[in-house]
């Protein structure tokens, strides 16, 4: 069999590309500006079309709102956004049989970050900006919430406005958190860690990012539309009675869901197929195992959200009755569909954090990872079990009581594989020589925070306890401990660890320490009192509470302000370290054995000059005589910073 040197995809050397990367791009070559322009034009066209269609509908006359126009405006806006950025160029070109060989090469310089890039490293950095934008937006809303809760009788906002701020905060945060690690760190580092030169489907990867940003804008549009009052959980029948902001919520979730499915799809296929020769499953880095488990959830759980959102939109726009009890529908249907996605969703947030700390601990403990297979099994086990626990979110909704013991059991069982992660961490740290660098500090903080969050989750999974604590600040604190205390801390650990690789610059250690300690201490001071507040009966999403709880609320609010300030410190550290006084990073500042650190900095376009041949896993610290990671006879490009 003759193997032709002809290359199948755009990764191939372009023999006759009509475009030169050296030529400056025109003003209307596709970039963020054209995407915004096309989105605005699309929005206006959709709005006009909707008004044209539905101006005389009975519901339009009755409510004064034209949901058809609202929906079509957002739909056309998103399509315009994708057209404007160039996401649809290739799908349209395929209709006439074109392959990707005549696409322009990646732009030079900073403009590539504002374009549709098929370079996974560029997409990774785009995602960092995207998730930080989500985080800061929703963080500001959190500050507004804590300001309102300073006093139970003196109010900054009306009750209606307050619940809409709470809803927007929760929804943006949950949407951001779906991709906070898979997006930036997964996309950037998975190919490097498995020895691949590329992602399996680079255009789908880029599509996932630009869809993610479109989802952000859609959900943000809820505010000018008047917001939505349901919290991030969107329960019917309130959903069906809400204003046009509900369209933004439902459609935003559908768009974000599309982004999640495509991101998970791409990274899962890449991990399965593009592992370098010699990288058997038992040599795959634990971070990659975490991303794979997460990708499985992203691809298989998110369709339920997409379906739920679609049905909600049909109820509002087309007057169906999926969630309307009086017309043959059921509000419980939404709850079941939503939480069937919603519980795997929280593991989509937790598992990448486990993967990050599993990857970092051996580096900073200078010890092999304890129980590598247990760690991988734990993450896969959590992912699998997460499909069988969803009804613990609706114990108090009026479900069949006979269902409760089953879901209580499965929920308590899921703490077992989660416990594996802790055992692996403890085993790795035991008798190790720890280096308390900033990534390590954030990793240790994750273990501390997630222990509290995870244990309180076991309490709430118990049906009798759930009866008293459901809908209280106890639950709120539980999920902030797991999601923020776990995931966001892991994100920070990953950023501090991997930014030197991505940018060639070290994050400032002194500012980083200020950031870490401020964030860790005031995170705990903000959320721990909420367990007490919750046990003393304060419900969530309500802006009045018992006067006796004002002291604790004020303590929590002031701590929250300082916690918010810690993110300003982080932002300052980013600016300072990247632009104001950058300190060049050595090739491998952490002395990591990971394959991603064996490449040059900045990482070349195709990652590896030669596809590496893997001969061992990257955790053999302090094991003299261990087989090296890579067969140096066919090694990757030389390491060392290249200006």
């Amino acid at each position, binding site marked *: *069999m003759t*193997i*032709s*040197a*002809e*290359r*199948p*995809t755009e990764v191939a*050397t372009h023999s006759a590309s009509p475009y030169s990367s050296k030529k400056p791009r025109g003003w209307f070559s596709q970039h963020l500006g054209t995407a915004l322009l096309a989105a605005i034009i699309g929005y206006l066209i959709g709005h006009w079309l909707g008004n044209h269609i539905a101006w005389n509908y009975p519901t339009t006359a009755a409510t004064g709102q034209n949901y058809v126009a609202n929906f079509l405006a957002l739909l056309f806006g998103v399509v315009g956004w994708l057209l404007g950025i160039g996401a649809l160029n290739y*799908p349209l070109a*395929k*209709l*006439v*049989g*074109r*392959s990707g060989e005549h696409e322009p090469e990646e732009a030079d310089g900073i403009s590539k970050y504002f374009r549709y890039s098929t370079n996974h490293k560029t997409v990774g950095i785009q995602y960092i900006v995207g998730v930080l934008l989500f985080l800061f937006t929703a963080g500001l809303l959190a500050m507004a919430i804590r300001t309102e809760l300073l006093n139970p009788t003196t109010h900054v906002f009306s009750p209606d406005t307050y619940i809409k701020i709470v809803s927007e905060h929760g929804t943006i945060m949950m949407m951001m958190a779906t991709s906070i690690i898979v997006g930036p760190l997964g996309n950037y580092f998975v190919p490097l860690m498995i020895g*691949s*030169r590329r992602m*399996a*489907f680079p255009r789908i990867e880029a599509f996932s990012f630009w869809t993610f940003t479109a989802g952000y804008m859609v959900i943000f549009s809820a505010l000018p539309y008047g917001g939505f009052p349901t919290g991030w959980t969107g329960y019917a029948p309130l959903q069906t009675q809400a204003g046009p902001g509900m369209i933004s919520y439902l459609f935003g979730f559908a768009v974000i869901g599309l982004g999640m*499915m495509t991101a998970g*799809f791409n990274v*899962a*296929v890449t991990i*399965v*197929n*593009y592992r370098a*020769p010699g990288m058997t499953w038992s040599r795959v880095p634990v971070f990659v195992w975490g991303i794979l488990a997460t990708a499985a959830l992203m*691809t*298989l759980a998110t*369709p*339920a959200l*997409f*379906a739920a959102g*679609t*049905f909600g939109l*049909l*109820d509002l726009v*087309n*007057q*169906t*009755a*999926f969630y*309307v*009890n*009086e*017309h*043959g*529908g*059921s509000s*419980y*249907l939404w709850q*079941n*569909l939503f939480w*069937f996605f919603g519980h795997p969703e929280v593991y989509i947030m937790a598992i990448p954090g486990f993967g990050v700390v599993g990857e970092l601990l051996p580096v900073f403990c200078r010890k092999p990872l304890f129980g590598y297979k247990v760690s991988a099994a734990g993450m896969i086990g959590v992912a699998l079990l997460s499909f069988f626990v969803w009804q613990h979110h609706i114990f108090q909704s009026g479900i069949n009581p006979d269902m409760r013991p089953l879901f209580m059991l499965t929920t308590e069982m899921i703490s077992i594989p989660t416990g594996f992660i802790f055992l692996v961490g403890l085993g790795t740290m035991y008798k190790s020589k720890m280096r308390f660098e900033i990534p390590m500090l954030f990793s240790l903080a994750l273990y501390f925070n997630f222990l509290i969050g995870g244990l309180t989750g076991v309490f709430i999974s118990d049906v009798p306890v759930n009866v008293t604590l459901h809908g209280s600040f106890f639950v709120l604190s539980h999920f902030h401990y797991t999601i923020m205390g776990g995931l966001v801390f892991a994100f920070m650990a990953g950023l501090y660890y991997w930014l030197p690789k991505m940018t060639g610059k070290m994050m400032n250690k002194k500012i980083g320490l200020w950031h870490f300690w401020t964030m860790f201490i005031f995170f705990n001071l903000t959320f721990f009192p909420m367990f007490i507040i919750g046990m003393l009966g304060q419900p969530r999403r309500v802006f009045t509470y018992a006067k006796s709880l004002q002291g604790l609320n004020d303590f929590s609010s002031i701590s929250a302000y300082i916690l918010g300030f810690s993110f300003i410190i982080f932002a300052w550290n980013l600016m300072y370290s990247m632009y104001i006084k950058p300190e060049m990073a050595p090739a491998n500042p952490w002395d990591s054995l990971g394959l991603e650190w064996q490449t040059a900095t900045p990482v*070349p376009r*195709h990652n590896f*000059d*030669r*596809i590496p041949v893997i001969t061992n896993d990257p955790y053999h610290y302090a094991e003299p005589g261990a087989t090296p990671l890579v067969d140096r006879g066919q090694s990757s490009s030389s390491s060392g910073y290249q200006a």
Partner: protein
Amino acid sequence: MSNTPEEVEFELRAHVGSLWTGGRLFIGIYTFLIASLAFSYFYLRSSNNSDLWRPNHVTAPTAYGWSIYGMMMGAGILAYFGQTRLRKGQVADWFVACWTGVGLGVVALFLQIWELVVLNFYPGSSGYASTFVGFVVFNIISLTLGTYWLETCVARAHRMGFEMGEGAVLANTSAGRSFRANVASMTYFWGFLGLSGTMFLLMFYVL
């Protein structure tokens, strides 16, 4: 960047494997999507809130349903038949089968959209009506995706013939192998559409 024959072959095999894995994973994603619809159907049917699951056993226009189903199955069978002929080197048979399949898919799509216009019940009149409208939306998406995938395969084959010569789709080149892997995944997807279409036909038009 080094491009030894071994590396080229490795990357080609990874790419072909990705098309295989991706095709199956895509079916997995789609399964969970339509399972959500099926769940909704059975959930609303069993809860029968306000006795409005399916008053008077209302049914969507059956002629439309069977026609759309028939065309969908036809497109799927033709895609499978076409692939079988392609494997035997009969490219012309493959073109005829697949272009016919594309035509059936397009007609089915238009009929499916039109069915919404001629519905004999109000969308929110019952649980059945609501889930049926949801099914129509998903079926429109399915037909669009399936027909798009089929058409792009055929279009790609034509272009390969123009650019690389007759028989390019059968050649053992990287483009040829990639193309055939894509066709295999597409055929698999149509098989899945046939199965799911049968299930929904039974649910909405027969039972």
